[in-house]
C-alpha cells in the first residue's frame, strides 16, 4: 500500500517535534504501523481506503497535541553534544599517540590522551554497541594499567606475569580503539549523505599505524621513514575524525544519551580515586625498606686474601689495575664550546685524524660539564686496553630520555663503568654518583638495559677533570635478582666508605654481589 499523503502529513507533524533523529524515526514507524492496522481493519469492515484512512486519523486525535506530548517527553532526555564528544576523541587520539618525550612529559601526555578518549567514549556509549564496548574496553584497560603499575614496584613479580599483563593491555587498547572507529563509521552511515566516507578506513589505517610502530622498534635504521609514515597515518585519522565532527554539526545530528545517574557517577568516582591512590601506594611501596639489602651476598673485600684473589684474577687476564683516559686539551675546548650541549645527555662523534672519539656530554650548569668519552679501539692509545679486546665494543644507549631523571640529573660526579663479558671488554655505561656530606660516595646509580649481558664491571672511571680512576674488580652482575621499578630508581647505600648498590634500569635492577671499598681521596683500592 502506497503511503497516503494524509498519513504522511500526520506522521510528519508529530515526528518533526521529536528532537532526536532515531527516536523520531522509531516513532514514525510505530505510529505508521498503528494507523495501517486501523486502515486494514476498517477496509475489511467494508470501508473504502479513503474513508478508512480518514477515520483512522480522526481516531488518532489531534496531531499537534500528540506531537507536543511526545516532544516534551523526549526533550527531557539531554541530547549528546557530538561536537564536544568528538573533539575529546580527536585530542585523546592525538595525545595518546604522542611519541616525543621531554622528561616526564610522555607518560603525562599519554595519560591525558587516554582520559580524553575515555571521556569521549563515555559520552558516546549510548550511541551504539561499538561505542559501548569501546568504553568498556577503555575502562578495563585503565584498570589493567593501574594494576600493572601498582604491582610492578613489588619485588619478585614474575616477568611472565608482567609481560602477559602488558600484552593484555596492548590488546585491550588496540581492540577498544578499533571498536571506537567502527562506532564512528556506523555513525557516518546514519547521516543522510553517508558522511565522510574515509572514516570507515580509519580502522585499517590504525592497524597499519600500529604495525609501523612495531616496525620502527625493529628497524632502527629506517626509523625516520617509518616515523614519517606513522605521522601520515595519524594525520589521516585525525582529519577524518575532524571531518566527521564538522559533518555532524552541519547536519545538526543529535543523539540521545542517558543523563548522569548515581551508578555512573559512582563508577567514575571510583576510577578517579584509584587513579589518585595508585601513585601514592606505589610511592609507599618504593619508600619501604628494599628486600635487596638482605637478598644479595656480600664478598668482604677488606680481607687481604680476597683482594689478593681479585688482583690475581685481574693480573691473570693481563689487565691493568688502573686506567686513565684523557681527552686531548684541544678536544675538550672544542666540546666546551659546543652550542648543542644541553642539560641532558648528548652524544657526539668526533673524527680527528687518527683519533676517533665518541663523547657523551652533560652540562650540569653554566660552569660545569660532565664528559664521558670513548676511544675507538683501533685508534686508541694502547696503554688503556688489552690487545685482545674484541672490535665490537658497545656503547649503551644511555642517552635515552629516561636518563634525564632521578639521580642522573645533576649528579655530584659521573663515572664511566666498563664491563666485561667472556673475557672481553663489552660495554660502557655511565654511573651517577652522589656524595655524602663528608665527601664519601653515598650512592652509585647505574642504569643497565635488559639486554646487557655484561659479566663484570672492570673499571669505574672518574671523569671529573682528574686523571685518576677507580678500579672496581670482581663486581658480578647478578641477573637472578630482578627488582622492577617503573616509577622510581633507588640507589642503595651501605656505609660512608663503601658502596653496595643495585644497578637500576627502567626495567630491571641488577645487584652487585660484591662489595666495593675504595678511597675517594687516593682513588686506590684498599687492601
Amino acid at each position, binding site marked *: 500500500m502506497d503511503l497516503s499523503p494524509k498519513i504522511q502529513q500526520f506522521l510528519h507533524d508529530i515526528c518533526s517535534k521529536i528532537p532526536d533523529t532515531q527516536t523520531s524515526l522509531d516513532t514514525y514507524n510505530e505510529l505508521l504501523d498503528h494507523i495501517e492496522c486501523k486502515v*486494514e481493519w476498517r477496509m475489511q469492515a467494508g470501508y473504502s481506503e479513503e474513508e478508512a484512512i480518514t477515520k483512522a486519523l480522526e481516531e*488518532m486525535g489531534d496531531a499537534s497535541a*500528540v506531537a507536543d506530548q511526545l516532544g516534551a517527553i523526549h526533550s*527531557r532526555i539531554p541530547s549528546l553534544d557530538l561536537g564536544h564528544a568528538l573533539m575529546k576523541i580527536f585530542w585523546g587520539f592525538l595525545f595518546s599517540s604522542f611519541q616525543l618525550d621531554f622528561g616526564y612529559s610522555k607518560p603525562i601526555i599519554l595519560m591525558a590522551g587516554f582520559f580524553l578518549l575515555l571521556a569521549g567514549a563515555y559520552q558516546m556509549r549510548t550511541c551504539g554497541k561499538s561505542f559501548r564496548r569501546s568504553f568498556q574496553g577503555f575502562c578495563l584497560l585503565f584498570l589493567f594499567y593501574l594494576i600493572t603499575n601498582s604491582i610492578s614496584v613489588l619485588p619478585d613479580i614474575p616477568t611472565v606475569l608482567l609481560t602477559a599483563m602488558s600484552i593484555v593491555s596492548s590488546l585491550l587498547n588496540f581492540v577498544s580503539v578499533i571498536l571506537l572507529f567502527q562506532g564512528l563509521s556506523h555513525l557516518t552511515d546514519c547521516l543522510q549523505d553517508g558522511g565522510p566516507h574515509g572514516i570507515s578506513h580509519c580502522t585499517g589505517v590504525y592497524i597499519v599505524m600500529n604495525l609501523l610502530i612495531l616496525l620502527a622498534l625493529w628497524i632502527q635504521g629506517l626509523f625516520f621513514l617509518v616515523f614519517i609514515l606513522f605521522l601520515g597515518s595519524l594525520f589521516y585519522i585525525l582529519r577524518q575524525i575532524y571531518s566527521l565532527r564538522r559533518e555532524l554539526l552541519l547536519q545538526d545530528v543529535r543523539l540521545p544519551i542517558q543523563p548522569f545517574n548515581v551508578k555512573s557517577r559512582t563508577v567514575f568516582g571510583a576510577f578517579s580515586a584509584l587513579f589518585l591512590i595508585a601513585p601514592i601506594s606505589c610511592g609507599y611501596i618504593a619508600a619501604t625498606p628494599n628486600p635487596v639489602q638482605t637478598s644479595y651476598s656480600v664478598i668482604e673485600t677488606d680481607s687481604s686474601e680476597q683482594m689478593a684473589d681479585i688482583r690475581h684474577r685481574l693480573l691473570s687476564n693481563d689487565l691493568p689495575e688502573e686506567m686513565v683516559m684523557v681527552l686531548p686539551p684541544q678536544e675538550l675546548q672544542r666540546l666546551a664550546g659546543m652550542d648543542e650541549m644541553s642539560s641532558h645527555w648528548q652524544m657526539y662523534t668526533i673524527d680527528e685524524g687518527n683519533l676517533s672519539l665518541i663523547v657523551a656530554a652533560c652540562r650540569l650548569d653554566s660552569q660545569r660539564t660532565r664528559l664521558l668519552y670513548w676511544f675507538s679501539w683501533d685508534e686508541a692509545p694502547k696503554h688503556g686496553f688489552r690487545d685482545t679486546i674484541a672490535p665490537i665494543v658497545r656503547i649503551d644507549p644511555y642517552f635515552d630520555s629516561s636518563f634525564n631523571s632521578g639521580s642522573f640529573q645533576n649528579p655530584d660526579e659521573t663515572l664511566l663503568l666498563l664491563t666485561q663479558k667472556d673475557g672481553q671488554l663489552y660495554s660502557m655505561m655511565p654511573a651517577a654518583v652522589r656524595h655524602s656530606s663528608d665527601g664519601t660516595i653515598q650512592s652509585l646509580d647505574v642504569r643497565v638495559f635488559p639486554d646487557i649481558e655484561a659479566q663484570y664491571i672492570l673499571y669505574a672511571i672518574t671523569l671529573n677533570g682528574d686523571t685518576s680512576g677507580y678500579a672496581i674488580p670482581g663486581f658480578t652482575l647478578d641477573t637472578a635478582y630482578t627488582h622492577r621499578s617503573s616509577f622510581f630508581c633507588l640507589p642503595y647505600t651501605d656505609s660512608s666508605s663503601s658502596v653496595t648498590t643495585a644497578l637500576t634500569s627502567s626495567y630491571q635492577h641488577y645487584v652487585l654481589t660484591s662489595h666495593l671499598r675504595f678511597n675517594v681521596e687516593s682513588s686506590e683500592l684498599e687492601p
Partner: protein
Amino acid sequence: MRISKELVKGSTAILVLSVISRKPMYGYQIIREIEQLSDSVFHLNEGTLYPILHSLEEENYLDCYWEDSESGRKRKYYSLTEKGRKELAKQQEEWTTFSTAVAKVIQGGAYGSLA
C-alpha cells in the same frame, strides 16, 4: 456507558501496565485489549496512548523490541521490566485502597449519613 475522560486519564498508566504484564504487546493491540477486557467501557484516545507508552519506557517501566509484522511492517512491542512490575504492584495497591475508599464514601452517601 462512556466514562468521562478525566476519570480515565488518571488510570491509563495502570491499565496499560496491567495488559502488558500478561504478554508483550504493540500499541494497537494494547488499545484493543483494554477495550475488550473492559467490555468497551474504556476507549483510549489512540493518539494519546503513545505519549503514555513512551513516558513509561523512559521511566524504564517498559522495555521494547522490534519485530516484523505479518504484513511486513516494523512493529514495536512493549514488555514489562522488573521495575515496571514493581510499579504496577504499587499502583494496584494504591488503586485498591483508592477504589475501596471511594466505594465506602459513595455507599455511605447512598444510604444516608448520621446527620
